[in-house]
């Protein structure tokens, strides 16, 4: 067949056009999917889903939400080599995943990124593992303080707490605020409630020093002193007995809301308490212990990590930055130094301006005592071995089945498993060399009697 001239050009031209659409061109404009296993409620998911398209339009990165989280789910996904690109890790899991090479060292993907300058000092350190690498970006940060009912203080003729109040003043206030209206011997309103997981914040305030990554349990005098004071609150009827709290089945927040307590130690910020109605809310810092310099509790509360199996580490980092730095459900975010976090929250909850929230927050930045809570108190490898013995003992202590002296006597027994836990950790085949070195060093310390 003889082609006429137009056809001679038309057919190859069409072929070229089709070749141009064979996907190579599309690849440049194709969006990259980054899966994000996020713990979020329905409203938060909706908010994220509304914001993601504009982020995608700007960056070509589409964040695919998977809001159903759980440790088992995460392990199963990792085992199937289908780990989400971004997921939450707490300190213990983070170190283990880092040691097994399951999460990326963010230093490698975030090198010289100006975003790092936007973070509060210490945030990178909070996400660091034993090898010195940075494996998670905290998506939240908090301190703790005492939420109190200002009306109750006024009615009892008490001055409102100031930022330098002491344990003694707090205790005196708790005594005046405790009321037994019907005279049945059980207070209708207790002066204060301190959930037991905040006792360590008080230990830090009292001067207890617990090194980061410490291998074993130690109960210094400062801790023992706080334990005694804590138990005395219950024995004197100023704080509800922890056993009674379990029986009531209430969340601490509800105790304050329903007038069952006049003061409550809780996380700051605490959205639930900020939204609480019917209570004229005040927030005070933790009380000081005598003349000791204040050291307020601060925690990064875990963070978001990037899976090492991701095909798009750069894009995952961009998505991670957007989640922490821009996604509205995390804003204003307390890990960012370049935004007035308190002002942002006061804008959302105007009544906060009167509560003392700013003072508590700023004190925690000024006198940062760090986080001595269980999950960073011990090395990632020894924590479970230690905690399985410590936690039941603490429960016994709070219910006064044992004394502080008994607890201290039990410490060597608690530390007994530390060496074995380290041995077990070394037995893991997929341990990265840097972590193997760290664990070997810890084992040597243990053998030399570091826990004795």
């Amino acid at each position: 067949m003889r082609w006429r001239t137009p056809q001679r050009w038309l057919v190859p031209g069409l072929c070229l056009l089709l070749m141009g659409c064979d996907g190579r061109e599309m690849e440049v404009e194709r969006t990259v999917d980054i899966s994000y296993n996020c713990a979020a409620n329905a409203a938060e998911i909706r908010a994220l889903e509304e914001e993601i398209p504009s982020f995608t339009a700007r960056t070509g990165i589409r964040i695919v939400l998977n809001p159903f989280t759980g440790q088992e789910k995460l392990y199963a996904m990792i085992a199937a080599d289908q780990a989400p690109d971004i997921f939450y890790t707490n300190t213990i899991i983070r170190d283990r995943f880092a040691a097994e090479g399951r999460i990326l060292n963010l230093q490698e993907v975030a090198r010289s990124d100006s975003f790092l300058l936007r973070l509060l000092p210490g945030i990178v350190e909070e996400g660091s593992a034993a090898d010195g690498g940075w494996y998670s970006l905290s998506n939240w940060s908090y301190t703790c303080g005492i939420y109190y009912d200002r009306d109750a203080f006024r009615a009892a003729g008490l001055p409102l707490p100031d930022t330098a109040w002491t344990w003694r003043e707090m205790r005196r206030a708790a005594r005046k605020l405790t009321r037994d209206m019907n005279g049945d011997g059980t207070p209708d309103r207790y002066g204060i409630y301190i959930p037991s997981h905040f006792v360590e914040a008080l230990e830090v305030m009292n001067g207890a020093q617990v090194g980061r990554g410490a291998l074993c349990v130690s109960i210094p005098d400062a801790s023992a002193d706080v334990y005694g004071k804590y138990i005395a609150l219950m024995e004197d009827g100023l704080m509800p007995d922890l056993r009674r709290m379990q029986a009531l089945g209430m969340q601490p927040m509800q105790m304050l809301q329903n007038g069952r307590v006049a003061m409550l130690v809780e996380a700051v910020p605490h959205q639930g308490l900020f939204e609480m109605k019917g209570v004229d809310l005040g927030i005070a810092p933790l009380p000081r212990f005598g003349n000791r310099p204040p050291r307020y509790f601060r925690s990064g509360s875990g963070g978001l990590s990037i899976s090492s199996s991701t095909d798009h580490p750069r894009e995952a980092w961009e998505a991670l930055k957007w989640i922490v730095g821009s996604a509205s459900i995390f804003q204003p975010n307390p890990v960012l130094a370049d935004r007035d976090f308190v002002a942002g929250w006061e804008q959302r909850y105007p009544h906060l301006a009167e509560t003392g929230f700013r003072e508590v927050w700023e004190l925690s930045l000024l006198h940062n005592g760090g986080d001595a809570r269980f999950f960073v108190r011990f090395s990632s490898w020894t924590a479970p071995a230690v905690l399985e013995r410590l936690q039941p003992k603490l429960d016994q202590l709070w219910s006064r089945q044992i004394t502080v002296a008994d607890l201290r006597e039990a410490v060597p027994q608690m530390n007994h498993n530390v060496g074995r836990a380290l041995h077990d950790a070394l037995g893991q085949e997929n341990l990265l060399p840097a972590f193997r070195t760290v664990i070997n060093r810890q084992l040597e310390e243990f053998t030399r009697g570091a826990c004795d």
Partner: protein
Amino acid sequence: MDRRPGRPPANVRTLARSGSLYFILAGCSILFLAPVVWMISASLQDQQGVFATPYAWIPEAPRWDNYATVTTMFPFWRYVGNTLIITISVTVGTLLSCSLVAYGFARLRFPGRNLLFALCLSTMMLPGQVTMIPLYVMFARVGWVDTFLPLIVPSLFGTPFYIFLLRQFFLTIPREFDEAALLDGAGHLRIYWSIVLPLARPALATVALFTFVGAWNDFFGPLIYINSPENATLTLGLNMLKAQIAGTGVVEWQVLMAGALLVMLPNVVVFLLAQRHFVKGLAIGGLRG
């Protein structure tokens, strides 16, 4: 009839016996019903009322709108649809597969039957946690994660406990029926379908009820296998009502309870419908060895 002096008459004794029995039963019922009653009551409270002390079991101004609210907080009706698809498929699949396997164990004679039956039962000893990761890996390899298939397909391969229950029931059906059918030229599938299954309705109702309730309430399976919000089930939806921002948000318990009650309703309806068969099936299946 003689009675010993001082001993109350028989009718009085019977009355006393049944009275105390009813008293104990009523006590137990109250004990078991209390959480449900609290759930109903809490679902009609406002936020403050849920944990108020003293607690008002009957709220002064019932908040019926909690029920409407819960249907708007997540794609409720979509999740109802997803849950129904999974539950109905699982129930039908379990009934078919378990009854077929149970028929084989009850009626067919073949070498190694008892060994196979023992093997089948022994899988009941395997905790779900042990098989969770291998199963997930398997389903991930075939690309079934984030679909309903991992939640439905396993039901097509039988469940040991139900196989056992049905086999026990099938053993109570006289073999003479089968023999008569065989003489009439029926094969095993015909006997299974036309004779055994209709006679085993109580046992099938029991299995259907257990399976329905199990699949409807299943949280862990969907949690593991479902990733996208649009594929979620009601249990995952309810879980999404819990506040998350740094764990310090507000949980609206009254809405959560309203949701839980709505989710519970189909179970109650199915139970009421199948109750008569269920009790009979359980009794017969459990007693006959």
